[in-house]
């Protein structure tokens, strides 16, 4: 909580948004207004940390797919899969086709559930209820009240069936336990497969409906289109995402591709090469680090081709890809780029932050279609090939998946018994940390000016700048500083510092 004792310099006024809401995890925004009432500076701070990288040391590496989902219970499958892939690499395990199919199927069904939660519970209230509507009803309950109980039931059904699918794979509907080094802990019976196909069929229809709803509620409303295209929600940055061998979006596997702000390929890399391409910066005023492209360098909180700031969002994934791997989503991809850039091919990147919501709904459809395709694969129920045993000497490995909130990298080093010696994690939301700070500041500067009354609605429109990223600061705060540096200052009555002691 922002302390009332935090000193604001003379001539400035502070507005705090605390906590920020309708997201996963913790954050606060401090906006400093100058004497004229214009935004002088704006800080987005992450006040919470836990410490997974360090406390996972000493744990058997095969437990990482069970431990790391507790970084984020909203996207546990993302950590489970990245961890399992890193473990595969640690043990040099080559997965059979069935194991790969099962993992990708489970992952795509999870994507449907996760993107559904984000769209209806976290994002839609701003559009269905309105950005400046009553905060007491600007939530899922308000949305259900407005769009009707029928649609509300379908949303709840999609989530419930998604979690039923998770339980078919992994026992538990939240934090499933089944991706292991070498594959999956169990295969699918014919009966389980049939039920999953039914779930995927429903999800495809539900996703198609959701895309239509997005058109009806957002794109058919000229005010919202104006806000997306001309509002203070725009940054030209690099884009990052996983692509398959045909450069199409893939959530589970592939190589990482980065394109520059104009859409030109900047680099591609395999998981094991991640540290050659991405570096992280530490700032003293927040616990969360700031990743950037190493080859471009950190130039501060600025966009453009000379700044190493990149984004890894649904929009970024569409920007880096040449297309989608399923027909309905491909159609939606072309319409999206046609509308926003005038170029159906997708070669010109989109940088409108609020349009990330649109890209997310296209991914929802893609995940559902891809899930349906995978569940019908003849090898999916093979009774043996859902795993291989890991018998090689363990060592080092990196696993990467696209978490719903960005490229997720797990890097492990073990001893010869497979006990973890070192872990490094760069999680989805952390990739977007610098861009989120920039987006919040730009929205604040665009919305708060001299003479403008700073209403709750205006502050919510600033929050909309980060909500587009669907951030998960639970994920982002996996790391934890140990001994906290402490600074004590003694001031005189006028506030001048008489003495200062630092423990660090």
């Amino acid at each position, binding site marked *: 909580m*922002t302390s009332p004792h935090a000193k604001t310099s003379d001539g400035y006024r502070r507005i705090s948004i605390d906590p920020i809401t309708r997201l996963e995890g913790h954050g606060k925004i401090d906006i400093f207004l100058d004497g004229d009432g214009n935004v002088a500076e704006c800080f987005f701070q992450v006040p919470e940390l836990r410490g997974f990288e360090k406390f996972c040391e000493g744990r058997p590496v095969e437990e990482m797919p069970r431990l790391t989902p507790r970084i984020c219970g909203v996207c546990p499958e993302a950590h489970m899969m990245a961890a399992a892939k890193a473990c595969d690499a640690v043990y040099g395990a080559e997965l059979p086709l069935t194991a790969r199919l099962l993992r990708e199927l489970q992952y795509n069904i999870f994507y449907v559930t996760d993107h559904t939660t984000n769209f209806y519970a976290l994002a839609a209230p701003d559009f269905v209820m309105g950005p400046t509507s009553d905060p007491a009803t600007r939530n899922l309950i308000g949305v259900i009240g407005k769009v009707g109980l029928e649609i509300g039931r379908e949303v709840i059904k999609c989530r419930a069936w998604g979690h039923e699918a998770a339980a078919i794979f992994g026992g538990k509907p939240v934090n499933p336990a089944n991706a292991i080094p070498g594959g999956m802990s169990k295969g699918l019976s014919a009966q389980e497969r049939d039920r999953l196909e039914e779930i995927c069929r429903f999800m495809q229809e539900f996703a198609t409906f959701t895309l239509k709803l997005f058109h009806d509620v957002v794109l058919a409303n000229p005010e919202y289109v104006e806000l997306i295209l001309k509002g203070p929600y725009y940054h030209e940055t690099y884009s990052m995402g996983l692509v398959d061998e045909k450069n199409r979006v893939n959530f589970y596997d592939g190589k990482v591709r980065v394109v520059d702000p104009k859409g030109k390929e900047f680099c591609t890399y395999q998981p094991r090469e991640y540290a050659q391409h991405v570096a992280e910066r530490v700032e003293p005023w927040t616990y969360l680090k700031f990743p950037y492209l190493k080859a471009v360098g950190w130039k501060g909180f600025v966009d453009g081709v000379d700044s190493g700031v990149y984004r890894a969002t649904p929009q970024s994934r569409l920007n880096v890809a040449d297309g989608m791997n399923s027909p309905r989503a491909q159609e939606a991809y072309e319409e999206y780029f046609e509308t926003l850039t005038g170029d159906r091919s997708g070669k010109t990147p989109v940088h409108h932050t609020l349009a990330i919501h649109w890209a997310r709904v296209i991914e929802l459809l893609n995940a559902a279609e891809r899930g349906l395709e995978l569940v019908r694969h003849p090898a999916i129920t093979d009774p043996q090939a859902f795993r291989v045993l890991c018998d090689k000497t363990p060592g080092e490995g990196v696993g990467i998946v696209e978490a719903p909130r960005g490229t997720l990298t797990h890097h492990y080093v073990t001893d010869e018994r497979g006990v973890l010696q070192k872990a490094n994690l760069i999680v989805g939301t952390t990739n977007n940390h610098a861009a989120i700070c920039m987006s919040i500041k730009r929205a604040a500067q665009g919305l708060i000016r001299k003479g403008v009354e700073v209403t709750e609605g205006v502050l919510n429109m600033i929050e909309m700048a980060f909500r587009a990223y669907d951030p998960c600061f639970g994920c982002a705060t996996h790391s934890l500083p140990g001994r906290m540096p402490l600074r004590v200052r003694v001031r005189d009555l006028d506030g001048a510092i008489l003495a200062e002691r630092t423990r660090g």
Partner: protein
Amino acid sequence: MPSANGKLKVGMYWAASCGGCDISLLEIGPRLLELLQIAEVVFWPCAADFKYANVVGYPDAFIDLCFFNGGVRNSEQEEVARLLRKKSKSLIAYGACASGGGIPALANLKSRDAIFDAAYHHNPSTQNPEGTEPQPLVETPLGELEIPEFYPAVLRLRDVVPVDYELPGCPPQADRVWEAVQAVAGGAVPLRNAGLKVGCTDKTVCDECSREKKQAKIARFKRHHQVRPEPGWCLLEQGLLCMGPATRGGCGALCLKADMPCEGCYGPPPSAEDQATSMMGALGALLDATTEERARELVAEIPDPVGGFARFSLASGYLKVAK
């Protein structure tokens, strides 16, 4: 009991947690609509736009049921815990972290210096030549910026404020959540209580597990990525470290249905204070060893006894780590 509009006022907060508890509350599915017939949300950062200032402005005991998930890792979380205790009639420690520390309490095994070093200095992707570290207080030309102070260890909610009920699980299983909500909201149990466990059974996970026990002794310990377990047979008897005998029931032995061992997320069984001790006791009876030396050899095969036996309970058991 209900407020002026006849609806129960409900709050949900997250501290040192992952959001899985928030998801598990949504997990009650179609019953969520039923719940909304009788209850209204007055604070839930994950899903609704109420701010700390709103909660500060509520009269004392304004919130009927307040679910608090996550352990207490820093000063802000303690402050919010105290605020919500004051503003709530019934405060429920929701999930493994709020009731026992959960997985984030594994950090209680590490010194803060070491953790700090891993996060900000010796890390393969961090570029920090100036040795910058986050500071609780940073002065900028515009004013001071604050982030909360970290505590030496993860605490349970009940270490900070009195708790009326504890709902274990990582996360709590949806049917158990619904039962607990119905019991408290329906008046079957009083709003105030002394940290009573709800949403769980008085037995162990083994009692809920359908796998067969053949009364076989453990001849050696195995790791799950190196063995295909025989279907339907007790995993512990097959040498896989399964926490079932030392874990409170309630989940329905769900992980076992995926051929994976129980990791103990419902905490110690009612008969035991400490989960790790309880597991050591259970293993003592199961080892295929007639001499102490053989027993010692067998146990030495377990690569990480602390992380296995006390994965969810390091803030609550006997294994408190000196800082």
